[in-house]
């Protein structure tokens, strides 16, 4: 695609912007300048509106006055029809930026005999183009011009001449035509318009209508060839160029909170900004609440958030979230939160996408929650839901918007609409039924680019928001809810008992230590006493020996006794 674009850039085909956002992107700048573009489609597909918007944009924004030649309605009717879209055709006419020529053609009051030509149309256009310096011309609808005459060959030849004539005057023109059974137009006009052909389509699929636009042909220019959804909204025609192929969005390192502290912790610090979270779960598992938390935390940071509801009305959600302590109303009042509720069956998938794209464009939120995307399958066909959701996610990612999509998972993990590979983080909420109650469990099934907890947490909705609580793994599996509470009580009880037991044992031991210490002191006293006794005895013994010797020596010296043999002193 990009290679193709590069080739075309070298060409530098001059283009006339249509002022229709999206269409100018698809056509890489607008319609071929100075050429005629054929816009074809069935009745009510928005051909006239596209043409009128092209003229209004030219007159208002690009300094290119225009001429509208309509064969369909009166000038007043055309003005009235587009006035509701904010297009003031009368005002533009007064300012000399636009001229509307309306031709009412009623075949029943016209008789034909012999040759004729459409020279008056040329003459009128030449006069008007010169008078207001028109650069743009719209002819709406060519089929009615054909219907006005019987000799189709003449009309066809004259139109061919008209297109060449317009080209000679470097006028950018749009010719609208009815889609034919076999060709692009009933009259085969596409043969004469060889530069650019745009097909509008209005399909009804499962009783839901979807408008689509496709650039069938664009000579000398690259263009997107896909079918693009478009909207006819209060602001006119809007095309949504959505390319699900590009994977070129940046990856932010910044983490943002999910609004649930412990969930942030499980995700190693929160969600990456601009990442996409899928929350799947069975009914009533608190998916919307998780979404509301994300919204609440974004708004609390002062960021803009968008909440798209496919299942409930905004008031319902505001009321329900208040019951878990989340006041979304204040964010709505503060202009930080926009809520948009749409029944899945109200529009086609493409239209949903288109509206989302417009909301994102206008409001530029930093966080978007799509609540209940799974219910889109209740509307149009399921196979298309994947592609639609993929485009929605792509749309959000491309703009760096942190997104959370919640969906109802019927039963198994695998039944989620096949978009799990597109999301960065996948949270699964599940109801566990035990002991006659249902409790919610939260799993982090995946979280790209970050370590995440493999633990199951119990997801508890309190009056101050959602909380994650550790679960207990008992012999009967994971224990939640009141069973968990009971378990907690039991554990507390056991702990208490255990600590009392310990205290008792401590006291006992302390007592015994004291006793032993006392005994030890006593023993030591006794020991000391005995040692002292022993000491005394020894002392006395030594004294006695010394005294005896001294006495004997004193006595013998007194008697002058001879020393006894072997006995120096001699005793006896």
């Amino acid at each position, binding site marked *: 695609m990009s290679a193709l674009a590069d080739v075309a850039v070298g060409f530098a085909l001059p283009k006339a912007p249509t002022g229709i956002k999206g269409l100018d992107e698809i056509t890489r700048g607008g319609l071929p300048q100075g050429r005629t573009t054929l816009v074809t489609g069935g009745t009510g597909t928005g051909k006239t509106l596209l043409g009128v918007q092209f003229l209004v944009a030219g007159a208002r924004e690009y300094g290119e006055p225009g001429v509208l030649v309509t064969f369909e309605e009166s000038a007043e009717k055309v003005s009235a029809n587009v006035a509701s879209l904010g297009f003031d055709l009368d005002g533009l006419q007064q300012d000399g930026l636009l001229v509307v*020529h*309306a*031709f*009412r*053609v009623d075949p029943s*009051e*016209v*008789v*034909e*005999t*012999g*040759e*004729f*030509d*459409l*020279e*008056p*149309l040329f*003459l*009128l256009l*030449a*006069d008007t183009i010169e008078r207001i310096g028109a650069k743009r011309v719209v002819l709406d609808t060519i089929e009615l*011009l054909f219907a*006005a*005459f019987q000799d189709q060959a003449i009309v066809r030849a004259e139109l061919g001449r008209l297109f060449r004539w317009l080209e000679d005057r470097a006028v950018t023109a749009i010719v609208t035509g009815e889609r034919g059974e076999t060709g692009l137009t009933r009259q085969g006009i596409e043969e004469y318009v060889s530069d650019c052909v745009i097909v509008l389509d209005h399909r009804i699929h499962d009783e839901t209508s979807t408008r689509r636009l496709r650039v069938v042909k664009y000579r000398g220019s690259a263009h997107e060839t896909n079918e693009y959804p478009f909207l006819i909204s209060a602001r006119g025609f809007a095309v949504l160029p959505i390319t699900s192929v590009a994977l070129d969005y940046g990856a932010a390192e910044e983490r943002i909170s999910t609004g649930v502290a412990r969930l942030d912790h499980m995700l190693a610090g929160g969600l990456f900004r601009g990442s996409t979270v899928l929350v799947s779960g069975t009914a009533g598992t608190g998916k919307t609440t998780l979404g509301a938390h994300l919204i609440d935390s974004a708004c609390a940071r002062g960021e803009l958030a968008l909440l798209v509801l496919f299942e409930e009305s905004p008031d319902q959600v505001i009321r329900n979230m208040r019951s878990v302590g989340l006041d979304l109303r204040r964010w709505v009042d503060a202009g930080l939160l926009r809520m948009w509720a749409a029944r899945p069956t109200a529009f086609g998938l493409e239209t949903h996408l288109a509206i989302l794209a417009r909301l994102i464009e206008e409001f530029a939120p930093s966080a978007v929650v799509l609540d209940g995307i799974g219910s889109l399958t209740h509307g149009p066909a399921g196979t298309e839901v994947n592609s639609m959701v993929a485009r929605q996610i792509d749309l959000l990612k491309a703009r760096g918007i942190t997104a959370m999509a919640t969906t109802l998972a019927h039963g198994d993990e695998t039944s989620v609409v096949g978009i799990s590979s597109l999301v960065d983080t996948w949270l699964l909420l599940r109801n566990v039924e035990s002991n006659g109650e249902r409790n919610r469990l939260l799993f982090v099934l995946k979280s790209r680019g970050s370590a995440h907890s493999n633990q199951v947490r119990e997801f508890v909705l309190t009056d101050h928001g959602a909380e994650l609580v550790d679960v207990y793994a008992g012999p009967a599996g994971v224990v939640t809810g009141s069973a968990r509470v009971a378990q907690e009580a039991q554990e507390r009880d056991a702990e208490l008992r255990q600590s009392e037991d310990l205290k008792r044992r401590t006291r006992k031991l302390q007592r015994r230590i004291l006793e032993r210490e006392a005994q030890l002191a006593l023993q030591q006293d006794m020991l000391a006493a005995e040692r002292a006794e022993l000491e005394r005895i020894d002392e006395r013994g030594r004294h006695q020996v010394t005294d005896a010797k001294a006495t004997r020596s004193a006595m013998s010296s007194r008697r002058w006794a001879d020393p006894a043999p072997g006995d120096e002193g001699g005793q006896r």
Partner: protein
Amino acid sequence: MTGPHAAGKRGEAPVPREIWELRLYVIGHSPKCVRAIENLQVACEQHLAGRYRIEVVDLLENPRLAADDQILAVPTLVRKLPPPIRKIVGDLSNTDRLLSGLQLRPRRGEAT
């Protein structure tokens, strides 16, 4: 009733009960337009002698008349009177179609 009355008038000088006002839109002197003027004059002389008026409008002089008078093609002949307005597009080369377009045939049949 109508028969004898009409028969009574036969032979008398034709009394123009109403003037046919015809306007022919042309652009310049293209062969088609010149042919149309000729064809119209011949037909009128033949079938509306004395009770017709032809106005030739050249749109070159005022192109915006095309929008005002709702003229998409030339030549276009407009029967302004008698009402209702009728439009005949082409060079008027087929006299039968011209007459039927002007709704002249029944009147001629009555007159003869």
